[in-house]
């Protein structure tokens, strides 16, 4: 007998009033009760809009033109208000700080019940029960500032489960989490699915991370249409992902590099199900064939050195504890570590926003202790994560010129320098444009340009790729590589494992304010101790090596990196 779908789109289209064209075209999609569905697609593909249609934000909050029909549990959503839908579908949003509206965990979990006029005693009871399900029952009185990203997300999850909804919708649940927490989140979702049999819909572009647990079907979206609706094995072995600009799982990339034609019957959807017998031989041969690059023997010149730097806000809790490392001229390095490990504080101390309690910072051998914030900015520039936190002018030109104007450089020289920088940043055509007309990636570049205008020798970027899909990630990173080739030393604060693997040969790892490792990315991504203390996880290449029986897994990962660099260089030529 065929099941009756719990969600059914029939020839559904949607156009926001502010848009000239529909965002969703002719969507036909059935989701059955108890299914676990993953919706992937690049930014702008309409996957978030599809989520809004399901949870009722369309048409409740976002007005537009609807064609066709969408039924949720046999109710036509257009005729329902968001409150009725919110009893059927619980939505966990990507920004857990935005979703966390209560002053404490308990209040936030109780929020929906408060709105339903539930009595206090019953609320207490239900909050206790549901918080225990997500392991938060001991933290009911904690405020959001005392919680980690993962704990905030668990609170959000408890806050929607308190209503016993039938469908759970996760909108980019991994976007703001470090790798270890992301992995834990996927496990929690899987547990809930197994225990309760609820219908689960996950919207995410990080395919590999979601496929850590079982998924029934993956829906691929592109330009407002569904371009694929299939099981992971089939999807991963097709060419859809590459065409759609979604990153395929790394182990699949490795198989392809090794010349293996990946097919559905190898069960490549999950690394755990992959049939290793057929791939093991060619993979090992490929691995052995990769040439080691010659060790660069020339002595590099150090540009920046932190020497036993310690810092604390309150005199008790050390945020930085004897931190020492150096950066060579022209390097591109990553600073990694979990939230609260002291990453951002390093940036603040380097820029002079905070002054270290002890220790010294040297730029080209000179102590910078006496330099003001303004003077340090001419050596070290900082690019914040959210470009909107830096942009204070309406026009691109004015924004980039700001740093020079505040230094009373004459207007003619400013014009020259801004032009030059915008050319470097690929923004020359936009010089007279309003910034609001630019895309997120272009805005990011404007902020980088507005820092580069002061001609710093080093720039620090805080999470340059956070929340970006594969295409935008590549775009930003390619751009940073170009800047780096022009001689600017780049330090990135990140927990993006792909970034480390693909762009920064060296990573400094922090934990509890101490440097616990300063080594090759391939080591960081494969060393258990480091991974655990920095909230990372093993790259799937490590697990692949393990499964096919390659003993030196770190070397395998390093070889992959070397090989890929070769691929990238040749594709650029």
């Amino acid at each position, binding site marked *: 007998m065929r099941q009756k779908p719990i969600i059914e789109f029939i020839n559904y289209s949607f156009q926001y009033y502010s848009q000239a064209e529909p965002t969703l075209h002719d969507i036909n999609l059935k989701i059955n009760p108890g299914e676990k569905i993953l919706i992937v697609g690049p930014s702008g593909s309409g996957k978030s809009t599809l989520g809004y249609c399901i949870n009722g934000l369309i048409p409740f909050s976002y007005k537009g033109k609807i064609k066709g029909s969408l039924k949720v549990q046999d109710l036509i959503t257009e005729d329902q208000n968001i409150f009725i839908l*919110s009893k059927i579908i619980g939505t966990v949003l990507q920004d857990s700080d935005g979703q966390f509206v209560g002053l404490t965990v308990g*209040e936030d979990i109780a929020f929906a*019940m408060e709105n339903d006029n*539930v009595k206090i005693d019953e609320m207490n009871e239900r909050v206790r029960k549901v918080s225990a399900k997500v392991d938060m029952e001991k933290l009911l009185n904690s405020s959001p500032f005392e919680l980690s990203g993962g704990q905030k997300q668990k609170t959000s999850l408890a806050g929607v489960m308190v209503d016993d909804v039938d469908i759970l919708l996760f909108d980019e649940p991994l976007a703001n989490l470090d790798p270890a927490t992301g992995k834990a989140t996927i496990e929690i979702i899987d547990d809930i699915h197994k225990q309760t049999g609820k219908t689960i819909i996950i919207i995410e572009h990080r395919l590999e991370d979601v496929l850590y647990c079982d998924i029934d079907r993956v829906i691929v979206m592109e330009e407002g249409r569904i371009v694929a609706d299939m099981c992971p094995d089939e999807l991963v072995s097709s060419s859809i992902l590459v065409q759609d600009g979604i990153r395929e799982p790394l182990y699949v990339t490795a198989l392809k590099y090794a010349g293996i034609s990946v097919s559905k019957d190898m069960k490549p959807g999950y690394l755990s199900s992959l049939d290793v017998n057929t791939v093991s031989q060619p993979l090992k041969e490929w691995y052995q064939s990769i040439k080691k690059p010659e060790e660069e023997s020339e002595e590099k010149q150090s540009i920046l050195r932190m020497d036993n730097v310690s810092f604390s806000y309150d005199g008790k809790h050390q945020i930085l504890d004897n931190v020492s490392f150096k950066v060579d001229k022209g390097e591109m390095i990553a600073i990694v570590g979990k939230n609260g490990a002291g990453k951002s504080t390093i940036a603040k101390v380097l820029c002079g926003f905070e002054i270290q309690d002890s220790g010294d910072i040297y730029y080209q051998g000179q102590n910078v202790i006496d330099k003001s914030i303004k003077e340090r900015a001419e050596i070290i520039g900082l690019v914040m994560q959210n470009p*909107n936190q830096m942009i*204070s002018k309406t026009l691109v030109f004015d924004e980039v010129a700001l740093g020079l104007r505040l*230094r009373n450089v004459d207007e003619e020289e400013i014009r020259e320098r801004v032009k030059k920088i915008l050319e470097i940043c690929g923004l020359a055509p936009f010089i007279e444009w309003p910034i609001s007309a630019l895309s997120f990636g272009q805005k990011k570049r404007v902020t980088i340009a507005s820092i580069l205008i002061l001609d710093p020798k080093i720039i620090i970027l805080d999470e340059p790729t956070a929340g970006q899909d594969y295409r935008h990630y590549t775009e930003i990173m390619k751009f940073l590589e170009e800047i780096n080739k022009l001689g600017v030393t780049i330090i990135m604060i990140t927990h993006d494992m792909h970034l480390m693997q693909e762009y920064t040969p060296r990573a400094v790892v922090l934990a509890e304010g101490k440097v616990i490792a300063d080594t090759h990315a391939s080591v960081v991504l494969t060393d258990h101790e480091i991974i655990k203390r920095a909230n990372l996880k093993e790259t799937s290449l490590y697990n692949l090596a393990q499964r096919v029986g390659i003993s030196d897994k770190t070397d395998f990962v390093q070889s992959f990196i070397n090989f890929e660099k070769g691929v990238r260089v040749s594709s650029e030529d």
Partner: protein
Amino acid sequence: MKIKLFSYNRLDTPIHRLSGITKLITFLFLTFAVMFSYDIRVIIAVMIFALILLRVSKIKFSQIKVMMIYVLIFLVTNAIITFFFAPEYGVEIYGTRHEILKIFGRYNLTREQLFYQTTKFFKYASVIPFGIIFLLTTDPSEFAASLSGMGISYKVSYAVALTLRYFPDIQRDYQDISQAQQARGLEISKKASLLNRFKNALLIIVPLIFSTIERIELISNAMDLRGFGKFKTRTWYKKKKLKKQDYLAIIVSVLIFIITILISVFINKSRFYNPFI
């Protein structure tokens, strides 16, 4: 400088144990009592009561030192300019004139002026301990529930809860933005000219507002999705039930308020206590 909105610390004193709504109501009644009265005897009496409560709630002087300095600066400035603008105002109020000291021109110190300004000084000062007790002993989580319990629309009450919830986030954003703009060359020191400081302020305000606007949409979506505003009423998870001591505290504060008014109406026959006739 980091400011904590409510430097609430969880202590177990009779004041801490009162519910938020009790504290809000008593705070308002006692404040209104001294705001209404211009009788220094009443004001001093209430102030002594306030200082006792301050002791009971175990508030340390170090917690309120900065506030005290601010208040003192304010009171002294107010005293000076009051005298500068209206040296004869006391005479006008009390209807008699006893000169103590000739300063120059129309600036002569009278007993009436001294008495008026002293009363005013204590009138302002007496409100402060109540405010401090309220701020330092009320769990911020209870605050919105208390407002709503007083009959203020729950939506407005929730707006206050959101202010308390997001204040630290926005303060952190403010600091980050301010530092990043300083790196670009923004001078926030007092050296800059007035116009420049005004322009420079915008360099912080614009990014602060525009990055906050993004969040408004997100947060309101999150609240809509969890049924905010569905019904005409809502309950509050953190609302404390009123106990015997709560009613007692409310009665005491109402009594003080009524007595203050009665003293004005029947004894002083005016808001002012006039010792000069």
